[in-house]
């Protein structure tokens, strides 16, 4: 029974958020049920739409899987946006530099470029946190800003489409070589190789975290850094690794955004959301909703992918702005992170009625409590 309560609380949180969404649709003078129908139709109505939903889920899943690594190691990675951009930029540079390389070589190199770009952008806050006690929440946010400006600079200058130089100067690269495009899996839909890659990545993250010594060390550092250090595990090195791996997956998300797009080029509108679609933040939502478990993040990402594609249809059919989806995401985050206390309370109520002990030891798979507690970067022992 208690297990059931534990599992149902996030769903309850989502239900409350959707109820709020229904009220908003009602307030906008539309029928919430026809709104829901339009969203469902938009997300799953045709094969092409299901494909669009899956494609939409890809960056969320990759970022989300990366988020679970960071969280298990007790670091908060809010730098998904910057890491996506860094990965996209480096992979685009690869494709621009050696466009005539055969696909079988170029595509892996492009993916590698994305992984490395994201890993670098993730490793920087990792190093700063591990060796200079800089709060990673702040450094990742600052690096998001740096990445956006770097993208703006490169796409307006060195990497701009040669046609645009004397033309309207739209800040975008030229159409990249088809040799680097993520192959379409089902002809006539947008379903591309990024979908299986993202699912595979989430499974690999699961295996790394729970089936390898590296994952054991990462989780040990996240669970109790002092005990990990006493056991001879380098806390510093594992913090860097966690953020680098987290960043690498976001970088891969950047690759899918460029090389899975129909325009096959990188474009900026000056902000980060214009390119990433806020996947760096929405990926956090997906990971949280997936209980910070890489495998649960898979269905969770598809759900949020559906929410985003559904919202597009909602806008087309009922003229309800798709910004509704983002605000619902925000509420879901709030409800999910607040639900621990509610769950505790519910469990206690159940316990008092059945007479079972209150303190159940946390299972190995439960998300770490109070991730933020040791992340302020101002731990007493680091104070000079």
């Amino acid at each position, binding site marked *: 029974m208690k297990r059931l309560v534990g599992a149902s609380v996030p769903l309850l949180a989502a239900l409350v958020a959707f109820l709020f969404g229904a009220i*908003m649709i009602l307030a*906008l003078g539309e029928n919430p049920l026809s709104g829901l129908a339009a969203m469902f139709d938009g997300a799953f109505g045709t094969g092409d739409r299901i494909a669009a939903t899956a494609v939409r889920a890809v960056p969320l899943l990759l970022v989300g899987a990366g988020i679970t690594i960071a969280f298990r190691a007790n670091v*908060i990675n*809010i730098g998904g946006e910057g890491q996506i951009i860094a990965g996209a930029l480096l992979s685009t540079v690869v494709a621009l530099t050696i466009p005539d390389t055969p696909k079988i070589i170029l595509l892996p190199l492009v993916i590698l470029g994305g992984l490395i770009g994201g890993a670098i952008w993730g490793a920087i806050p990792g190093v*700063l946190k591990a060796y*200079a*006690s*800089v*709060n990673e*929440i*702040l*450094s990742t*946010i*600052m*690096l*998001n*800003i*740096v990445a956006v*400006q*770097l993208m*703006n*600079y490169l796409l*307006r*200058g060195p990497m701009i489409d040669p046609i645009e130089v004397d033309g309207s100067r739209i800040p975008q690269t030229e159409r990249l070589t088809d040799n680097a495009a993520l192959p379409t899996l089902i002809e006539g839909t947008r379903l591309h190789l990024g979908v299986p890659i993202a699912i595979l990545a989430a499974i690999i993250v699961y295996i790394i975290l729970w089936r390898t010594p590296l994952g054991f060390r990462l989780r040990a550092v996240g669970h109790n850094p002092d005990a990990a250090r006493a056991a001879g595990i380098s806390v510093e090195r594992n913090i860097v690794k966690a953020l680098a791996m987290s960043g690498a997956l976001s970088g891969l998300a950047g690759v899918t955004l460029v090389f899975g797009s129909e325009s096959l080029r990188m474009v900026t509108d000056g*902000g980060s959301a214009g390119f990433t679609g*806020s996947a760096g*933040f*929405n990926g*956090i*939502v997906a990971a*949280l909703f997936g209980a910070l478990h890489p495998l649960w993040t898979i269905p969770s990402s598809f759900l949020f992918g559906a929410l985003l594609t559904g919202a597009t249809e909602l806008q087309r059919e009922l003229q*309800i*702005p798709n*910004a509704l*989806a*983002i*605000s*619902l*995401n*925000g*509420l879901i*985050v*709030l409800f999910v*992170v*607040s*639900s*621990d*206390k*509610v769950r505790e309370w519910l469990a206690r109520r159940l316990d008092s009625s059945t007479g079972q002990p209150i303190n159940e030891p946390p299972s190995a798979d439960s998300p770490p409590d*109070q*991730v*933020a*507690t040791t*992340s*302020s970067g*101002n731990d*007493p022992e*680091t*104070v*000079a």
Partner: protein
Amino acid sequence: MSQFFTLSVLTATLATAIKFAVPYLLASLGETIGQRSGVLNLGVDGIMLLGAFGAYYTVLETDSHLLGLAVGLIIGLLMGLLYAVVTVFLHAQQGISGIGIFLFGLGFSDLLFQELVGSVKPVKPLPTLDKLPGVGGIFEPLVDIDILGPLVFDHDLMTYTAFLLVPVVTWLLNKTTFGMNVRAVGENPQAADSLGVSVARTRFIAIMFGCVLAGLAGATLALQLAVFQHNLTNGIGFIAVALVYFGAWQPRWVMAGALLYGLVTATRLRWQSLDIIPQGASDIAAMTPAIITILALVLLASRARGPAALTKPFTRH
């Protein structure tokens, strides 16, 4: 470059810098109060966006700046209520719940804007002192004073409010009982609790202060720019959070950080408009405040110590 180093251009750039610093300053002063009580609020940007839209829409409909600012303040209060319940009573992880507040604000302000306004419609900007109805005439001669005029007298009332709040917040934190409680629950909530200070109530009020200032910061931004659009703040709220660390939790240093951001932005835009630097260099220059902040965090991390209980929910044992 020579056309930049003339007295009038330098003065004008500095005056713009002061104006640009205002939303940063208001938001980060509020965040300072919250963090001193041990609560990190990463949702400042979302609250600013909601406050900005509320103020903008009110002015669009009623033409009253005062009403607009009041709406911004009330929105801050409501969002503060939500965030306080989530963090103080429900013990939500603060790094993440703030992102929830941010996404909600980002989406909801955009939703309301598209639904209620639709296209970019400018409103009247906040009047500077000499344009204030009734009393403006008194200040007119002051604005014409060399250097001092544009720097000190050519601003709107929110600018003076923001800078006046620096000593006020310092006084509030250091000289009042409330401030002492705030610092106590931020450093050692257990000890404060055992002395009879209500940790929950103190943090609740501190969060409310912070969010009200965030709402006002957004309202001020929208009314200074006299416009609203999707993601108007473009991350100002996140930078405001960083400025609190940058300023080592001291209002006067937080102000220095806000002025630095204002100065870099004003200089960059001025150079661009004078064609001193090309667009590309301007993009690079836009990174500098973020990089300076990171460097400052590296240098400060070993020197300044934040509130010991920052981000730690309090449970009575």
